[in-house]
């Protein structure tokens, strides 16, 4: 099940939906192996409802087909019937998934966040509330290496490295200048 709870990310979901049959997983069939759900506006209500009877809030897929009749949904009533949930986000939504879905309904959960947010999720990793976490572009590159599918994460590492070194260099030079002006 692929879904977004961020209005600005609906286009991203469409792009993923378009790429799955082309290059991400060409052998997987829509409706049988995966399904894309429509956008819903209230994240907390959706997350809570996914732990009870999810068809009360998602009765159709994004194209209007009945969800219950799809083979991929056979035997699925809520997140307790799923093996893993994963939230890839640049917002704080992962916090909500942990609190309202993963913890409450005992669903194994993992996440992918920006590098800046990664540190905020370390307590969840230590307690096992998150089973795994991809932090920033390096995390994405590590994951790509793990599954042997090098893509944008790996490609971006050069730029990321240079940007980090540049920032470090600028801070060091600025501090040297500060000392120079102050003491010499």
């Amino acid at each position: 099940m692929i879904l977004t709870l961020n209005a600005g990310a609906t286009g991203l979901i469409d792009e993923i939906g378009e790429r799955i049959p082309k290059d991400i997983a060409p052998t997987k069939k829509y409706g049988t192996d995966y399904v894309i759900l429509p956008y819903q506006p209230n994240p907390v209500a959706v997350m809570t409802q996914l732990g009870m009877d999810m068809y009360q809030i998602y009765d159709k897929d994004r194209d209007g087909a009945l969800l219950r009749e799809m083979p991929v949904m056979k035997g699925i009533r809520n997140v307790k019937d799923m093996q893993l949930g994963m939230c890839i986000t640049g917002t704080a939504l992962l916090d909500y998934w942990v609190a309202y879905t993963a913890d409450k309904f005992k669903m194994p959960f993992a996440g992918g966040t920006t590098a800046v947010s990664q540190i905020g999720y370390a307590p969840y990793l230590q307690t096992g509330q998150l089973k795994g976490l991809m932090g920033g572009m390096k995390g994405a590159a590590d994951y790509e290496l793990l599954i042997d599918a090098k893509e944008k994460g790996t490609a971006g590492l050069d730029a990321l490295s240079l940007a980090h070194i540049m920032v470090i260099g600028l801070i060091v030079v600025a501090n040297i200048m500060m000392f120079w002006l102050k003491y010499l």
Partner: protein
Amino acid sequence: MTLIKKHIPLAICFIVGILTLSSYYVPTQASEKYVESMNKWENIVAGFAFLLGLFSLFFSHTRKITRRVDGWGYSLFVFVGFLAMVVPAIVSNGKQMVGADLTGLGWGYRFLFNALSGTMFSVLAFYIVSTAYRAFRIKSLQAGVLFAAALVLMLAKVPLGQMIWETLFGWTGGWDIAQIGQWLMDVPAVAGKRGIMMGLAIGGIVTALKIIFGIERQYMGKD
């Protein structure tokens, strides 16, 4: 009047608050049904809130344009941006692709929204450098420790940093920058984060109880 404006809203807030709170901790079939209907209502209200927000945004920017306040030209772009995405979305029935072709919405999302979002995020890099320098000015021992920790983390986070560390300090043997970075993240940073999380949680509980019991009434307005 006080009954309608004060006592009834307070009673609704108290009853709904207590019911929702207890339904979280007492998972029965009845509480599940209650939460289900609340979730549906929340989604409906959130949908209308979108609409309300949109009207409010339009009124606010229309006022800026008609009164020619400072920077009113930027307000025009609110309408341009809105129409640039909404009109193609209606025309293409919300679909980004038809077969192998991009619709107007798909084109707008890919070549306008994505590009502009990327630009906004990239501009942040310059602010980060400027803020980083201000934060990492080594004016005291504490600032020095902060800078050292940041330096180690930044080096640990990228392969080039790890290579530089290896070249400079590889001879020391056991001092792996990735491990030092991980220790910083796992121990001191997590300790601080836990403290913040606990504080936030306690604050959240107290605020929620104050709202449920009618001590905090700002949501009712000034009257």
